[in-house]
C-alpha cells in the first residue's frame, strides 16, 4: 500500500483521543512518515478539506448540525472510517442523560433563554454512518490505536479483545471491588483492553470503554442492590458512560434475541 491519505477529525468532544495520538510520542515521527496526514485541524493549519481519504479517524459526538455535516462529508471522503474513543463509538459522557431536554440544559448553563441555532441531542457518530473500525476508551488506549493503524496499513482490520474488564482484572489479580469492597464496579459490563486500569488503582471501573456486546445490566443491578447499595446510586454510577444509550441498546438486543429452539 502506498502512503495512505489520512484525515483526523474531532466532532464535539474533549479532544482526548486526538491528544492520545499526540501522546504516542515514541511513534509519532515515524507515524507521520508512514501516513500522509492531509487534514488534521488540531495539528496543522494548511489542510486539504476535500480530497479523498484512505483512512479517516473521527472523535467526539454529534452535538451540532455542523458536526453531522462534517461526519457525512468525512464518510463520503473516506474508504476506511475509524471511530476514536467512547464518545464516537457509544456517545460517552456527552450522551449521558439524553433524556434531560436540551432546553433545560441550556437554561442551566446560560441562565437565559437563548437561541441555539443548531445544537442537537448528543449522539455517537456510529449512530449516523457505518464505521469500519471502532476503538473504544475514554480516551482510547494508545496501543490499540497503534495496532489499528498497523493493521490498516497492511490491509487488514485490527482484532481487539472483546472480553470484559474483569478478564484483565483477574489476570492481574487485583482485589475485586465488588467482592472485597462492595462497590459498584462496571467491570463486568465493560469492554476490556485498558488493563483494568481503575481496579489496579484501587478504584472501581466506571465503564469508560463502553459496554461488552451483551452486558447483563439486570444482573449487575440486582447484584449491587443485594449488597445493600441503593438503586439510585447504582443507576447513577452505571449511567456514567451513556447508559441510556447502551441500556436501551442492550434491552433492544434482549428483546430481539430469538428464543432458542
Amino acid at each position, binding site marked *: 500500500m502506498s502512503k495512505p491519505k489520512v484525515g483526523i477529525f474531532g466532532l464535539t468532544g474533549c479532544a482526548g483521543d486526538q491528544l492520545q495520538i499526540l501522546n504516542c510520542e515514541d511513534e509519532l515521527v515515524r507515524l507521520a512518515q508512514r501516513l500522509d496526514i492531509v487534514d488534521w485541524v488540531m495539528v496543522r493549519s494548511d489542510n486539504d478539506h476535500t480530497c479523498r481519504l484512505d483512512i479517516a479517524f473521527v472523535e467526539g459526538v454529534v452535538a*451540532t448540525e455542523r458536526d453531522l455535516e462534517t461526519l457525512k462529508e468525512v464518510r463520503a471522503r473516506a474508504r476506511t472510517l475509524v471511530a476514536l474513543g467512547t464518545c464516537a463509538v457509544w456517545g460517552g459522557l456527552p450522551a449521558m442523560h439524553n433524556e434531560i431536554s436540551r432546553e433545560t440544559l441550556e437554561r442551566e*448553563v*446560560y441562565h437565559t433563554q437563548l437561541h441555539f441555532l443548531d445544537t442537537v441531542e448528543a449522539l455517537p457518530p456510529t449512530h449516523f454512518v457505518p464505521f469500519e473500525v471502532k476503538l473504544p476508551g475514554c480516551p482510547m488506549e494508545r496501543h490499540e490505536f497503534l495496532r489499528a493503524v498497523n493493521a490498516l496499513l497492511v490491509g487488514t482490520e485490527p482484532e481487539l479483545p472483546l472480553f470484559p474488564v474483569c478478564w484483565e482484572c483477574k489476570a492481574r489479580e487485583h482485589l475485586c471491588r465488588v467482592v472485597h469492597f462492595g462497590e459498584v464496579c462496571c467491570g463486568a459490563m465493560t469492554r476490556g483492553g485498558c488493563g483494568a486500569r481503575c481496579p489496579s488503582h484501587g478504584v472501581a471501573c466506571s465503564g469508560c470503554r463502553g459496554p461488552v456486546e451483551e452486558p447483563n445490566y439486570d444482573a449487575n443491578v440486582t447484584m449491587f442492590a443485594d449488597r445493600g447499595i441503593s438503586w439510585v446510586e447504582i443507576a447513577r454510577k452505571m449511567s456514567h458512560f451513556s447508559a441510556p444509550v447502551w441500556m436501551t441498546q442492550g434491552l433492544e438486543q434482549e428483546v430481539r434475541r430469538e428464543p432458542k429452539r
Partner: protein
Amino acid sequence: MSPSGRNIVIPHLGRVEGHGGIFVKVVGGTVHEVNMDIFEGSRYYEALLKGKHFLEVQGIITRVCAICSANHTVAALTALEDALSVRQSERIHTLRGLLLLGATIESHALHVFALALPDFLGFDSVIAMAAKYPDEVAFALRLKQLGNRVQELVGGRAVHPINTLVGGFGKLPGHRDVRAIRDELASALPPLLGFVELAASLDVPEWAAQPTVFVALRPYEEAFRFRGVSICTSRGEEFPLAAYRDVIREFTVEHSHAKHSALVSGETYMVGSMARLKLWGHLLKGRARESFERLFPRGVVDNILLNNWAQLVELVHSVEHGIEVCDELLGMPECAREMVPYEVRAGRGVGAIEVPRGTLFHEYEIDDEGLVVSANVVTPTAQNLANTERDLRAATEHLLADHASIDDGQLRLNLEMVARAYDPCISCSVHVTRLAAGEA
C-alpha cells in the same frame, strides 16, 4: 478587493484544541467587528452534574477537556474538599502539586513546540518542522512524554486521571517510580535550557503589543506556585477566592451568544503564563529565574506573542520544581494508599488553580446527602476570549497601519498567531457556544 470593505475570515483555526474561527470586518481602514467564533458543540457538563453525587464529579468534569483533564480534576477536588472541609494531608497536597506540574509540562511542551513554534520557524505544522529540526522535535516529544509519565504515575492515566479521589489517592506511587521520574526530569533540564537560547535568538514582532490587565492567583507560599490563595491583578488589587464571581463578570455577548469575561470595571484581562510571570515572576528561582531574565530582559511587556516564551519559562520552572517535589516525596515514608477521612455534609466550596492557560475556577454546592446542588466552572480560555478579540482588533489595526498593502493571507496568518499565543482551549470553554462561521 476594495480596502473599504474587507472581511478576514479564518473559518477553522488550526493548531488549537477545539473548533473555532476568526472573523474580522474592516471598513475603510478601521476595524468594525472582531469575532472569535466558537462553534464547538456544547456538552453542558455543569448541568449534567446537578443531582450527581459529589464523588462522581471528577470523573465527569475531567471530560470537559483532555489537555486540561488533570487540572480540572485537581480544581474540582479542591473545591469539593473545600465544601466538605477536608484538610489535605501534606503528601496529598504534594502529590497533587506534582500532577499539576506534569500537566503543565505536557501542555506547554505541546503548545510551545508543536503548535506555536512552527509559526516562528515558518512551518505549517510540527510534522513539517520535524523534517528540518529532527532533534528539536524529538526532544520536545520526549519532554511532552515526560509530562505524561508524571500524570500517569500520579493520576493513573495521562488523559482523564482515575487515581485522584476526594480526600486522597487510590494508589500512591512507590519510591522506585518517583525516583525514576525524578532522574528523567533532571536529565531533561539541560536540553530545555537550550531551547531558551533558541527562543532568545528569535525575533518576536511588535504588532500585537498593547497594554493589558493581568490576573493571577497569589501563590500559597512565597514562591512561584500553581495553586493560590487569592486573586490578584496587575493593578495591585487583591480579592479572596470565594469572591471570584464578583471579581470576574461573565456575560453573554450580543453578537456571539458566547460567554465572555471582564473585570468589574469592564476591562478585559488576560490570565495565563504571561500574567503569572508579570505578577509573580520575581519569585522564580534557579534556572527558571535565569530563563525569565534571559527571555524577558525588561520584565513582562504587553505583547501577547510573548506568552509562548512565558510558557517556556514555566516549562523550566515545572521541570526544576518537579525535581524538588519528587525529592520531598522521597523524603516521606512509602505507603500504598492514603485517604483523609471526612464526613459528608452540605456546603459550598471554591477551587481555584493556575493551569497552563490561566486561572481555573470550580465551585460546587452540595447538599447534606452529598448531591450536587449547583456547579460552576470558569475556564481560562473563556476569560481570555474578550481579551483575545481585543488583541485581534489591535493587531489588525497595527498591521493595517504599518503595511497598508498587507494581503489577506498574511493578515490571516498573523491573526492566527495572536489567537494561538493565548493557547486557547476551546473544549474547555464550555460556557461558550457556537456562532456559525458561515454567517460572515
